[in-house]
């Protein structure tokens, strides 16, 4: 067994582990682990309905943004 193989094995496995660690850190930062109890039950609330619901909220947000932009354009006055 040459040194290179050992380096490769340690390097690759540590790198893969580090990817997992980075994902976890990202999860903590974005608040996905703020609620332990909800997190445990997450699988029960991960279906078609929830996806639809999320899409609905997304649309709501978009609709509002659009509305605001339209309002801005309406109120827009070119400088004299």
């Amino acid at each position: 067994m040459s040194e290179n193989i050992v380096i490769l094995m340690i390097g690759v496995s540590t790198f893969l582990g580090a990817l997992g660690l980075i994902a976890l850190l990202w999860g903590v930062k974005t608040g996905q682990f703020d609620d332990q109890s909800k997190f445990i039950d997450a699988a029960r609330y991960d279906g078609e309905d929830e996806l639809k619901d999320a899409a609905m909220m997304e649309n709501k947000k978009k609709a509002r943004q659009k509305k605001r932009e339209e309002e801005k354009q309406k109120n827009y006055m070119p400088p004299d």
Partner: protein
Amino acid sequence: MIKEKENDKELNFCCKGCQGVYHLLNSEGLGTFYDKLGDTKLQPASQSSEDLEKFDLEGFKNKYIKTDEDGLSEIHLIIEGIHCSACVWLNEKVLHKTDGVIEASINYTNNKAKVVWDPEEVKLSKIIETIRSIGYNAYPYDPSLQEERATKTRKDYYSRILVAVFGTMNIMWIAIAHYAGYFTGMQQSFKDILNVAEFILATPVLFYSGWIFFRGAYYGFKNRIVNMDTLVASGALSAYIYSIYAMVTQRGEVYFDSVVMIITFVLVGKYLEVLSKKHAVDTLDSLMGSTPTEVTTLKDGIKSLVSIENIQIGDIIELKPGEKVVIDGTLTSGQGSFDESSLTGENEPLYKQNADAILSGSICLDSVVHYEASKDVSSSLLTSIVNLLEESITKKPHIEQLANTISGYFSNIILLIALLTLAGWYFWNGSFETALIVGISVIVIACPCALGLATPMATLVGISIAAKRGILFKEATFLETMAKSKLLALDKTGTITEGKPSVVKAELFEDFDASLLLALVNTSNHPISKGLASYLKEENDLLQHIVLENIKSIEAKGIKASYEGKKLLGGNVDLLKNEGIEIDANSENSLFFFALDNKLVARFELTDTIREGAKEAIGQIEALGIKVVMLTGDHEQSANKVAKEVGIKEVHAKLLPQEKSALINKFQSSGEVVVMVGDGINDAIALAQSNIAIAMGQGADVAISVSDVVLLDEKPQSILEAYKISRRTFRAVKENLGFSLLYNVIAVPLAVAGFVNPLIAALSMSLSSLVVVGNSMRIKMIKFKDNQ
């Protein structure tokens, strides 16, 4: 029971409220809620539309609502009534379906919600109404007070722990290869690879995860204190530097594994402390959030809503039934019962009339009264209690821990010895390199391994034994503090006694339908009624649900109602005398009479009973050499009666919450380590002030969260057991510390003399750890007298 047919399916509802909720959910397409519930039983839905307008008031807006530059409003709410994840799901879904709500997320752990909405499309009162319409309630809180900071610290620790655990686990398996190589022989080139890999993994752990210890050590240095942080930081850093040196020069062994181990274990311990603080913050928010922001004032006969900050001394305030008092004052007109349980711990409502003092924190139960403000809001009792609690959460007095003190001295001495060794070897040997290696090896071998393990191992065993017996210690160090205590302060109501009246004597003069009486007492929230209700349910198997008519509660006296032409009357002596019924009312207990058509049919005596085994437990605690005192908000007579029965000699009665705390403080300033046991909001400040606070498992949330120990089974015997376990554990801690010091006394001179090679270090270290673990396991053999 309400019955209804729907598509050949028979539906049963307990009340109109639940029926309404069911149809609302089905029409919204959220009927799967009932499938998601599982075995969880729901409370009957109560619907109220009172005080909705307060959510749109200006004062409320300024205090709780944030508006961003996009014109969206944001509020943080605490949702009341959530008991399972289906509730969370339902609330979120209903809010999502409300027009104008942009974002709604609810935290299941602490029932806190964040709602973002467009104020042009929907009003906050409408959102609250929606939550109420499905049977929950919501009130606001201000997250910037405590929560934001607490959440940030928690996340910060969490990230650091993740990095530390990742580093430790990976270094461990590399270290296994290392050790295997050491005993079977390994080429230097492979050793170098493993060393470099460990170095890469250990660096972020030491400097990112261990940053907290460097910071602590720096502050300690600035204040000239050597603390545990100093020891951890210096130990880890010196082992790290030594390992780099060994790696570069290819001489000796690296100790990166012990560097990360120390950091990880001590960090996890610190994190647990942060968690318990976060919980306390949650309950404090709910206490503040339930207080009104506006009160109704009367000026020249005109009623107006005024924000509580603008109330001046002398203003006349109107109280409606069910309202919480936020400003102290004296009653000017009207009369009624007040629930002061959050102040005195006594469940019995107090009857107040003209010129009586009204205390903030109490709740007006049954009538409309007017009173004159005698203080402004900031100096009122409720505000000062909350402020005191907030302070005490951040500044809890802890006596210095033995392990901390010893390791403080220890690290000083070791650092000194290491320096002397370095100087000595350099002086005698002449080679700086050898001197450095020997000097650092002194620190490495004396490194907190055995010493660090001495306390946590013993306390871990102690905590797990306690937990098996229903005694939850929130932190390991509390065992040590408790073992040093010689003074136990007990609250009366809810701690020594059951805290709720129960029937001790029942006299039935005529046969009657118990279901009638149950229906009557169920209409009232008075503790006597509740005590009677639970007695009736226990005594009778078959009780029907009866709906009474013309229910009328009479202030501080009782309840009147009618059923199928019969006149029902239940209450105290005054009520029956008013109706012209003459009765014997001679008893030291609380009395409840029941009359049907003006004829007395039953007489019940109720009293707050003393918990089983209280007397024996208190006697045995005193036999351990601990002084027991009683602190209560109740009046002297009943306090003395209970004290006499359980054998407590020192009684302090008629204490307000802050007076209890002041008394604890007085004990402490005379050098006592005080253990306090309590259950209510009224005990919370005193609990926070005491060195060790023990709360009853059924007690108020605030009391539980500020306390250090929770007794799940609420038995007085558990207090005794807690004492025994903590003393036994403390003994084991002392033994462990003694042993690890002995180990160091032998190993350090060897290291100073330069005899320590890695084999001896590895062997002696694991051997010393084994001894410490084995000694800690002996705690499990502790005997409790009661089960012998």
